[in-house]
């Protein structure tokens, strides 16, 4: 018999199901992901650090765990909630099954819960602190521990928990662009897209100083995606402000928000975030609509963009800002994930386009 398990939301609601072999309690923000595929990418996405992730798609694990789809060296979510999990996956790339992997990764997981009811609760209440407890012992203590957790809960420290601690060099092709990447919790797919363009990448910790970033005189700077609230990283914002006069910069997701802050714009918390692969984004310059991958709980306040920044993209669902560029300098950023993984490839071209506009050599 699998252990009992439940998700407790800070408003007192509770959703029951059962756990996998690993017993324990996870605390974090409860959020939901609407993609119908890509659970391996999502579970290993550093932007989900500190979050309990509910999959709205009810059958998770069908094609197993490949390892090659992973975005990080380990699972990043604090906990996972699914309706039905596949114990017998079928795919030629599957190296193991999802339940076994979640156990090995020690991710407390709730299975068999009414994930749609959870999603509606999150939509109505907004993102909320939560506890996911697996096993009788954990269940008994969960509510009390959640109250305790909420008292001090914070998004601070999430980036530090997933970002690199030291400078790392990833080689490019001869004559390729030399890019410094400020790592706030980068996905492998971002590195892969840059490497595909032939770039040499220097991965830097999120708290690197301006001198450290500019050391070696990179051709351009990329600010990576990552978890949490951009206002938790004032030091990174300050570094971006310092270097924005000298280098082409491209920001993705959290990087987009940090770049906005560095230019004096404001960010705010979305009611329940955007997490999925079906968000329509309108390119205000070209006029076309692309479907994009999202994973963010905060947004840039478009009305606060300074005169030198021009909004380039807008979300068709809720009108939130999805991108901007500098009117005179090669600085651009997008809120969504052009690297997809998981999600549609519609925006993949943006990396190459930015290389083009910044005059960077590309393969």
């Amino acid at each position, binding site marked *: 018999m699998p252990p009992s398990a439940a998700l407790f939301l800070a408003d007192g609601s509770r959703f029951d199901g059962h756990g996998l072999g690993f017993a324990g309690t996870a605390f974090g923000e409860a959020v939901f992901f609407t993609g119908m595929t890509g659970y391996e990418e999502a579970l290993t996405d550093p932007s989900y650090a500190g979050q309990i992730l509910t999959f*709205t798609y009810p059958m998770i694990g069908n094609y197993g765990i490949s390892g090659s789809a992973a975005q990080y060296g380990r699972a990043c979510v604090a906990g996972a909630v699914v309706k*039905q999990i596949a114990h017998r996956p*079928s795919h030629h790339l599957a190296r193991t099954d999802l339940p076994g992997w979640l156990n090995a990764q020690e991710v407390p997981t709730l299975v068999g819960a009414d994930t*749609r009811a959870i999603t509606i609760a999150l939509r109505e209440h907004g993102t909320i602190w939560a506890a996911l407890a697996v096993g009788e012992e954990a269940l008994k203590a969960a509510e009390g521990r959640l109250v305790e957790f909420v008292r001090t809960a914070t998004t601070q420290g999430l980036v530090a928990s997933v970002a690199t601690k030291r400078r790392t060099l990833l080689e490019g092709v001869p004559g390729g662009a030399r890019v410094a990447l400020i790592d706030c919790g980068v996905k492998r797919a971002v590195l892969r897209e840059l490497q595909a363009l032939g770039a040499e990448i220097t991965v830097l910790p999120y708290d690197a100083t301006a001198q450290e970033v500019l050391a070696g005189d990179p051709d351009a700077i990329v600010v990576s995606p990552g978890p949490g609230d951009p206002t938790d990283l004032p030091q990174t914002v300050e570094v971006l402000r310092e270097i924005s006069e000298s280098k082409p910069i491209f920001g993705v997701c959290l990087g987009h928000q940090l770049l906005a802050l560095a230019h004096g714009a404001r960010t705010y918390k979305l009611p329940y975030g955007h997490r999925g692969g079906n968000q329509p984004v309108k390119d205000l310059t070209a006029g076309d609509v692309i*479907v994009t991958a999202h994973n963010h709980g905060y947004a840039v306040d478009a009305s606060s963009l300074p005169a030198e920044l021009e909004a380039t993209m807008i979300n068709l669902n809720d009108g939130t800002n999805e991108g901007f560029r500098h009117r005179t300098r090669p600085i651009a950023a997008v809120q969504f994930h052009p690297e997809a*993984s998981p999600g*549609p490839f519609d925006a993949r071209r943006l990396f190459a386009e930015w290389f083009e506009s910044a005059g960077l050599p590309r393969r």
Partner: protein
Amino acid sequence: MPRRNVMVIGSGPIVIGQAAEFDYAGVQACRALGEEGHRAVLVNSNPATIMTDPEVADAVYLEPLTVASIEQIIARERPDALLPTLGGQTGLNLAVELHEAGVLERYGVELLGTPVETIKLAEDRDRFKRKMQEIGEPVPESAVITHIEQGVEFARTAAFPLVVRPAYTLGGTGGGVVYNERELRETLDAGLAASLIGQVLLETSLLGWKEIEYEVLRDSAGNCITVCNMENFDPVGVHTGDSIVVAPSQTLSDLEYQMLRTASINVVRALAVEGGCNIQFALHPERSEYAIIEVNPRVSRSSALASKATGYPIAKISTRIALGQTLDQIPNPVTGVTKAAYEPTLDYVVVKIPRWPFDKFPIADTNLGTQMKSTGEAMGIGRTFRAALVKAVRGLDLKRETLTGSFTQWSQAELEAIVARPTNERLFAVCELLRRALYPGTLDLSNGRAAAIERIHAASAIDRFWLNELADLVELEERLRAHPNDADYAQALEWGYGTRAFGDDSRAATAAPPAFRMVDTAAAEFPAKSPYYYLSRGESDEMRPTPHEAVVVVGSGPIRIGQGIEFDYSCVHAAWALKAAGMSPVVVNNNPETVSTDFDISDVLVFEPPGADEVEAAYRATHARGVMLGFGGQTAINLAGELSARGVPIVGSDRNSLDMAENREQFDAALARLGVARPQGRAARSFREARAIARELGFPVLVRPSFVLGGRAMEIVYNEGQLASYAESAPPILADAPLLVDKYLRGLEIEVDAVFDGDDIMIPGIFEHVERAGIHSGDSIGVYPPQTIDEAMERRIGDVTLAIARELGIRGLINIQFVVHDGRLYIIEANPRASRTVPIIQKATGINIVAAATRIALGEKLRDMEYGTGIHPHVPFVVVKVPVFSFSKMRGVETILGPEMKSTGEVLGIDSSFAGALFKGFVAAGVRLPGSGGRILVSIADEEKHEAVPVLRRYAELGHTLVATPGTRAVLEASGIATQPVNKIADGSPHVIDLIASRRVDLVINDAKGTREISDNYKIRRTAVEAGIACLTSLDTARALAEALASTAGPPRSLQEYRTAQATIGF
């Protein structure tokens, strides 16, 4: 945008490969045109559709779908534009033909949406292949063939099996998988003939690859979204229309999903599609390689499925795109706040299972391949694949509540053969094999399971994922049969089983209570407005209160022979009538093709099998006044007893009326009380008894089992020998399953639809059949107003109808079939429900009898309505319903008409004269014959020869050449009719079959009533079907056709004009 005059072409009659999905698409298109302020001119020959209602389009033409006929309509309506991509392959081909014939240019008609160039590019196999190579999208190795020897040449270099795909055809007509040169030659011959441009693609087979489909929308600005992807349970090799289809895909990784999504968008961009497009892929299960199999640049069966699976109305959005709007401008009809430029995400799973007509055609070839054979489909929505699959199976209305149990008698070898070479029963054969492997008695369960799955996978290439899912279901079924327990029972309910699937239902209420969930396109990310629900178990309920008091309308499930789109038509009108009466209609149905399952139609749509559990749950959740069963065909009527037992009130004719009409003895007693005659007959409990009854009544007699078990049902037998051979092949005659033997009266058949409110009756019109009794009413040509019966007989019919309605306690619709024999009126059967003729009589007379019946059910009286009472006067024009068959899709099927229904659809001819209406009806049904100078092959049974002479003489007088088999020829020559001879098969080549196969005749008349043996006649009929030559099997039909050919039909007129003409004579 200025108001434009836009023509929409429908898809014509329901045939295999083209069903109700285009009614759904056409209705959405016309509504979108109306919402944008445009005038819609609709052409469709299919009268059973909602789209041909005068309320749907501004001008409705029930006219033949031919270039000549549409040109006439264009000439008088002068449309500004034509919308070609919503009428299926028929509409698309016509648009291309109108363009090629210069008609569009001549009248300045602009083609909206996807340009002709794109249609031609996607349909022309050769150009399409080159285009794909140009943009770097993979296609299977192939050759474009225009004559047979070219194909044989290609086969020398490429290995068998090969796939034959004719260009410009519907449902894979004429195509197939071939394994050797003989099959190749045969299939190429049929395929080249079926193709509009005499071209087929011969390609290397990707048998065993995963089959994946994407539904894409592209607007004129180039924006693309994918609405849905789908994965087939059946790997490549089975036509997608005959495959079990799952949405969304289940075994694709994100990378594969996105790879194919990107490829879809690349293709749609390269083709410059403007609107909906369907793309089919093969995906290698071990290498993630793919190839594009097919592209359909139009809305399709798959897009209807995708619309119902996601809630995203593809046809409506396609229409707006065709009008020039872009996806980011079009409002999202589901949320009401966002835009149409988004991709639905699902938090449930959808499974579609086809419904095949093999129960009606016992000798048909049930193997599945690239040519579609199913007539309809059932869709299940569930939170998991298991739940969705079980609901789809239950929704087929085959009385199967579980996956195992029906095939326990089959041998291992039979089951394995089906698994390796798919038939319609493959799913059940797989489940039975799994059951045997899981429960062999003593073997270790897990080993048995794994080994069985490997074996089945090796034989069928069905993905192990599906097999494991099935094994979980089979395990549960077996556990519940062996050791019923509460936990498994709750699990079964969650997995979609009915409360009665395993006997006891006492645990239902507490085990896993029903909960309605919304289909919202957004996995609950945004609140939705669409009132579209499915049933889950043991979860939270989302049903919102209805705006008004609810009434449940029970639908008719999948389209099958005998229960077609006409019942959907009635359900939609019932829903509309309820709305008009200030009530909230709640529709329960599971057919993804239809208008009734468009969430725009009702206040609550419950997409579930129309079964007792689901109807009861819908009734309770909406606090409805009751349920209406009279519109959903026999499927709905059959629920009466069960629902009554559960305390669910039936609104309208109640259980007693329904029972009485169904129960032969009660019905006979009622007729006796009324003094109404019916053909004499009795139930026989043995062959000896049957023979005695037949002798007493006198041959011919009509025989049928009282419980129809297999496909065999009614037959007319002319002598004792035939009775004996019937008894041998029919289900055994048993004491509790007697054989019914009735005197067969070969008289004029009459059909009446009426409404009765307890006091008054209203009969909008009486139908008369061209063929005399003995041919199923669905297969007969029907005429209104009647041409031969007099006023006194009409009055008598009205009186009897009233008496029967009163006796049965009808409150709403009643359909009665009569025979007039030797001037006497006999009743054949009465049905307390809507019928096939309801949409036709409603269209012909403009009287909405469904609305009247609905209002009666709510307690209103006819005398307080606007429809009048009694029999209505005739309209000043004639409508003729002509049945349409799908014999070309059903290899081997006997085409001779009899008491068992065989047609899949119908067309209507309307004209000021009977002959003109007949003419249009025949043309619309696809019977083509030159006015004179045609060659007609005649072969008539001895019993009919004397009656045949005057009919055939008429053809000769019209200038046709008669070619006759020896016996028929002797009779004709003796009567002074010149004929050309042709050999019987036994006399050697060139014989009658050679003549037909080489298409050297234009029409075949083969009335072989009373012959049962497989003979020359059967071969004549089948060869005619394969050769695409019309074959009439009744002299009555032949007589009517001669009359039609001798006349000239009037110009096309819209239904609205006919209505006006009717009004001027007073009503």
